[in-house]
């Protein structure tokens, strides 16, 4: 079984990918969305043609909003990002953008989030991710408690978490790279995408581990590495097919879906790809490695 044979290569490849992703996150950084850091976002559209960015900037400065990021959107619109605004400031900004009705402006959406709401959300995001990870370890430990030999069931849980970190860090690294060029922000939906990757990737690992569990109970082979190898190859078609079906729904969501969920679909697709990779080529080799260490220590 090639997974068993080349396990060190697969593990090294995963480690390299994780390291490269961490470097990418470190260099490019993640640009937190206004829902985390606070701030205001306004989307406007000019039905009769939009004014130049420089004109917009000058007018926004006039209403005492000093730093504004102005990005064109679509043919006729702009997205304007500023610090968080009070309702009075919001109205002042909106009326300044109409240039005394020279450019009739339509406000499509406006969001202003105070910094305290943002810090609360950050806290919630951290708590949710930790709770999901904890619940997963507990569940896997429970679900595999009957297969404590030769590898203790909690080790399946820990291996799952290690591979989950792999599955989350790589898409985050890729996102940091993309965001560097597209100015995409790490907002609530980004966190939601990571959490969904967590869920789907555990789903995958359980299917592979379940097959190992079954083969350990009924299989003829005594060799743990061989059982893991066989089990992985038995589930490989299923794993690829199910990832394909989910990617089949994510690609239209990215191409045709609502603007708000575009990045969400993109990160999920990347995450799913690496999730399936790690179920087959990272989790299984790790499991064999753990078992080998155990038997070495016994001797």
């Amino acid at each position, binding site marked *: 079984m090639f997974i068993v044979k080349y396990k060190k290569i697969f593990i090294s490849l995963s480690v390299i990918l994780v390291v490269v992703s961490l470097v990418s996150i470190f260099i490019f950084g993640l640009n937190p969305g206004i829902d985390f850091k606070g701030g205001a976002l306004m989307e406007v559209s000019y039905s009769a043609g939009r004014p130049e960015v420089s004109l917009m900037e000058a007018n926004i400065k006039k209403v005492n909003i000093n730093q504004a990021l102005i990005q064109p959107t679509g043919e006729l619109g702009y997205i304007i990002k500023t610090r968080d605004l009070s*309702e009075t400031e919001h109205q002042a900004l909106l009326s300044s953008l109409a240039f005394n009705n020279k450019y009739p402006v339509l406000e499509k*959406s*406006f969001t202003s989030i105070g910094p305290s*709401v943002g810090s609360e959300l950050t806290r*919630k995001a951290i708590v949710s991710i930790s709770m999901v990870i904890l619940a997963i370890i507990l569940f896997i430990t429970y679900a595999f408690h009957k297969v404590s030999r030769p590898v203790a069931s909690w080790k399946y849980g820990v291996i799952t978490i290690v591979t989950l970190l792999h599955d989350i860090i790589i898409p985050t690294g890729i996102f940091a790279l993309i965001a560097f060029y597209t100015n995409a922000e790490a907002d609530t939906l980004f966190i939601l995408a990571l959490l969904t990757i967590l869920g789907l990737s555990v789903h995958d690992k*359980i299917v592979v581990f379940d097959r190992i569990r079954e083969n350990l109970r009924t299989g003829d082979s005594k060799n743990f590495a061989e059982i893991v190898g066989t089990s992985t190859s038995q589930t490989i078609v299923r794993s690829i097919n199910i990832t394909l079906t989910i990617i089949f729904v994510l690609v239209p969501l990215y*191409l045709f879906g609502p*603007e708000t969920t575009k990045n*969400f679909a993109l990160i999920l697709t990347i995450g799913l790809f690496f999730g399936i990779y790690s179920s087959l080529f990272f989790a299984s080799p790790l499991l064999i490695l753990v078992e080998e260490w155990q038997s070495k220590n016994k001797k």
Partner: protein
Amino acid sequence: MIKKIILAVVILIFGSGIAFFVYKTEPKLNNNFETQNAFFKKFPFRLGLDLSGGSHLIYKADISAISSNEVGSSMEALRDVIERRVNLFGVSEPVVQVQHGGFISGGGEQLIVDLPGITDVKKAVEMIGQTPVLEFKTEASKDAVQNAIVGKDGNITIDLNSQFVTTELTGRYLKKATLEFDQNTREPKVSLQFDETGTKLFAKITKENVGKKVAIFLDGMPVSIPTVNEEIPNGQAVISGNFTPKEAKLLVGRLNSGALPVPITLLSTQTIGATLGESAVNAGVKASIIGFILVALFLILWYRLPGLIAVLALSLYTAILLAIFKLLPVTLTAAGIGGFIISLGMAVDANVLIFERMKEEIRKGHNIYDGIHAGFSRAWPSVRDSNTSSIITSIILFWLGTPLIKGFALTFGLGVLVSMFSAITISRIFLYALGIEKSNSFTKFLFGSGFKNLN
């Protein structure tokens, strides 16, 4: 065998019924929506603010002046006041909710106000910030002009405002209202305590109106119209009546909230224009349909006959899930639609697991019937465990998440639950109902997959 076919037909009819219900209750699909039975009009999809357009406001409540054991009731009272003000604004289906601070959410006590269809934040913020008016009114003389309104149904309602005349006594003079229980009858009643000026005014009003009604108006609407039994000089009034304890408690909350019980400041606002929301809905629907077609094509091309059955199960799954969204109802947001779309991909997971297993078992030498049977029973533990982990994840997200995450977790979690039923029960019944038992080259083609037939 006959039994299995009947069962399959029953499920098909039942499923078509659900699909028909979804179609009938959707104004965009059903051209005769307006003219049909009122029952079907009750269940449109409920769209979140990001899809329907509207305003989302978050207020921070300053509870520093309130003792900790009264925070809960003060926040409830605050919510009632804001809810009434919002209702006066004529918003359809506003949502006003209290979000308590705590370990998980951090932050303090917050009030979240959702105003569907309202994109004029300025007006909304002004209206919510205004002080409400608590008034005491006395009966107008019998011969005063009364306004009556003839309703569309032909009923005549007398305008209550014209039946009463305004007095000087207002909420400004109310010290506090408390909930009490009558010592003899144990009936709940509401007792009011006026301040000094209020006491004098109240004594005068009651003296002049013994045997008549005094109405208590809040924001121009009568909340209680008690009858005066005697002059009351001590500034204490009791409103007794056929209150349930809950109603009495509500009234106390409302009376005490003559002014906002808790000062609030606006933390964040979000407004989404209706056109933006509508284009998001259209985009979401388009993405769902294309996603569904791609998954269906893949299943049929790769898994052939079982794939076709899976597509049938997936169609039923979609109908059932959409009906649940309508009946519960689930408030759909862009993230919620995302959750639904992903669940479309996930829903076939169990089928893929089972079909791969079936093929393996048939290759091992089982005939097709036994192969189907073994495929289902062998695949069950992994279907159960993997879906359980997805359900656990969605429960945690629903429990801890922000509204956006909750919307996703709900559609996703419901999707996983329904898919366990559709992918296992429904597709099994259909596969058995086909009654294919013998293995010959044709059935081996039907049950083959990918580029290979079974051999």
